[in-house]
């Protein structure tokens, strides 16, 4: 039996939000819940929201990491013209569920307010498509985007990568891979409560067992789906689990935010700290009382609004004309 480990409290508004969130996103996700999560975490119809925000959507396909066709959508505000900055987005969903529109609300502000062109990717999901499919699909999306800057009317010098949770891990891995492979240059990386470390050994992971959103077991389920028996071994690539990267030099400026009341707290803090130690540029926000992805689930709360506002301010600094 697990002993109760003290953990930082949830913010009161967010704790109330969990009363609803828990109904569709259980704290503990085991392999037998993957199918349920694929239904419960599927994005709702977005057409009305796109219309309301005056966003035009183009469905595209591009060759994924192995050449097979992968879907993505290119979103653009009808109120901006000319070459625009671009955002390449990796959605959340524990590497096993979610789709290119999951949790997208938060990123749409960058399209409507900054005129960014958003490329959101339906990278293939584990366990059916284990490592390296998800990360190589994202890398192929970056190369496709860089090769189509003219058709897409985006600025080659202003491509930002962003991702939330598992997508945050993919975004961090993409920045590492682009650096190492001499790929397209990125102007920034937004890592929202990123899933960085397959070893699952931190104190914050021990603190959140069976509570909140995305607990210790869920994390093990996600990493195992991606890496199988290699999880936790030295065979794991730093592009899959960026916490394993030895060298964090020469990366694009990073924005990292994470909740104090979630399992990813320690690995996110450590990643930011190691970027600083390597002489890099990172901005780290640790939100008191925040559970994992609370800005997606409870954007109306004081903490959720602060997270969104703070992130948008950073992105504006990097992307705006």
């Amino acid at each position: 039996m697990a002993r109760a480990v003290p953990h930082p409290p949830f913010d009161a508004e967010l704790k109330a939000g969990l009363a609803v969130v828990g109904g569709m996103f259980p704290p503990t996700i085991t392999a037998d819940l993957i199918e349920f999560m694929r239904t419960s975490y599927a994005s709702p119809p977005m057409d009305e929201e796109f219309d309301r925000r005056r966003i035009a959507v183009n469905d595209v396909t591009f060759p994924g990491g192995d050449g097979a066709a992968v879907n993505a959508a290119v979103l653009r505000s009808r109120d901006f013209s000319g070459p625009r900055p671009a955002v390449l987005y990796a959605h959340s969903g524990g590497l096993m569920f979610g789709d290119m529109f999951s949790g997208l609300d938060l990123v749409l502000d960058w399209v409507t307010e900054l005129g960014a062109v958003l490329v959101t990717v339906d990278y293939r999901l584990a366990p059916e498509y284990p490592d390296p499919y998800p990360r190589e699909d994202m890398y192929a999306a970056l190369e496709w985007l860089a090769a189509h800057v003219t058709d897409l009317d985006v600025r080659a010098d202003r491509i930002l990568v962003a991702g939330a949770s598992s997508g945050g891990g993919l975004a961090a891995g993409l920045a590492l891979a682009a650096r190492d492979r001499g790929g397209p240059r990125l102007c920034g990386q937004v890592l929202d409560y990123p899933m960085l470390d397959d070893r699952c050994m931190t104190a914050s992971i021990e603190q959140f067992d069976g509570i909140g959103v995305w607990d210790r077991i869920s994390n093990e389920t996600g990493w195992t789906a991606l890496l199988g028996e290699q999880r936790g071994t030295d065979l794991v690539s730093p592009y899959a689990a960026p916490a394993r990267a030895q060298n964090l030099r020469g990366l694009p400026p990073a924005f990292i935010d994470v909740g104090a009341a979630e399992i990813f707290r320690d690995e996110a803090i450590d990643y930011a700290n190691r970027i600083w130690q390597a002489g890099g540029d990172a901005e780290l926000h640790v939100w008191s009382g925040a559970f994992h992805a609370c800005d997606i689930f409870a954007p109306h709360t004081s903490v959720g609004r602060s997270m969104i506002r703070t992130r948008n301010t950073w992105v504006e600094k990097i992307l705006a004309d």
Partner: protein
Amino acid sequence: MQELLGRIARLDPSASLGLRVIACFDELIVGNVNTRALLATAAALAGCTAGFRQSVPPRTLRVTPKGEAVQGESPTDPSNLHVASEDGIDVWLERDGAAGPNDALILERLALAVRIRNGRGAREIDNRRHLGILTGRESTPDERLTAASALGLSATGMYRLVVAPLFAVWRNHPAGPEDVIATPFGPVHAIVVPERYPPFGASPCGIGTATPPDSLDRSFRTAMVALRLCRAPKEPQVVADSYGGLIELLADADEHAPHSDADRVEAIAHYAWGMETIDAVVAAQSVREAARLLNIHHSTLQSRIDTITATLGFNPFEGFGRSRLGAAFLLHRLRTSTVLDLPAAAAPGNVAVLGPARPATV
């Protein structure tokens, strides 16, 4: 949040969204959040702007589903306002068209929470619901009988309380009067069922002892102990009857009072093998049987038992040893229970998720 409620309803048409709305506001009241936060949650749950106005001192506040405060007076078309009004405070939802399915409940809970936050005599205005009286230790047997009859229970019948966290995973729900009840461990979902009830599946879930209606407070207390003894997935449901008088003792015990045996069990729990070994020792008749339960060699077990005996200061296989260890083991589990830390997961009944197996990885 409105969208999430819609998802929950689609995933499980039998899910009670009302209970979630109530639980949500219970947490907001307990957390003592401000008026804006209360309006933001109401707006987010309803999917439309929520408003508040008090006459003295004059103050108006309107908040959108995204938590943004909006300026100006509410729309003038009264057909778009769904108002709950009491004691100089109005709250409303600015909904275009017909009321949503949860509007009335959201407004009722919002009105209550806003009144408490704005200092209108916190307690007495919360009309205690019948189930609260039925299960409350401080109510008299007569009050419980009155509440029981209001709930349609027979004065001569025998009933039990079933309790679960608000986010328990239900495979199917037993029928009976139900409500959300605040406890020191957090709000629980409580249902009154007959002594002999049709089987149902819920994880985690505690089922109390059977009592007449005027003693259902006792059934509730034993159900709470049973719930907090749950160990999902291996033991998702605990029936108080399995522990009989022991659970009744625990129900009335001060868990945090010093208890030398339980303190020593805590020391043993620090060993990786500690709790599972005590579990087997308490359940087994002999060292050999306990070793079989644990699937280890009996000499391995014997060395663990030597450690346990040395730590406890008594041999669990002698005299009152096993009783002492059993009681201390249960008390320790209650002290360290995380079952109600936060409502556990609710996945819909149409997915077989009761007691999901943990992945076979370390």
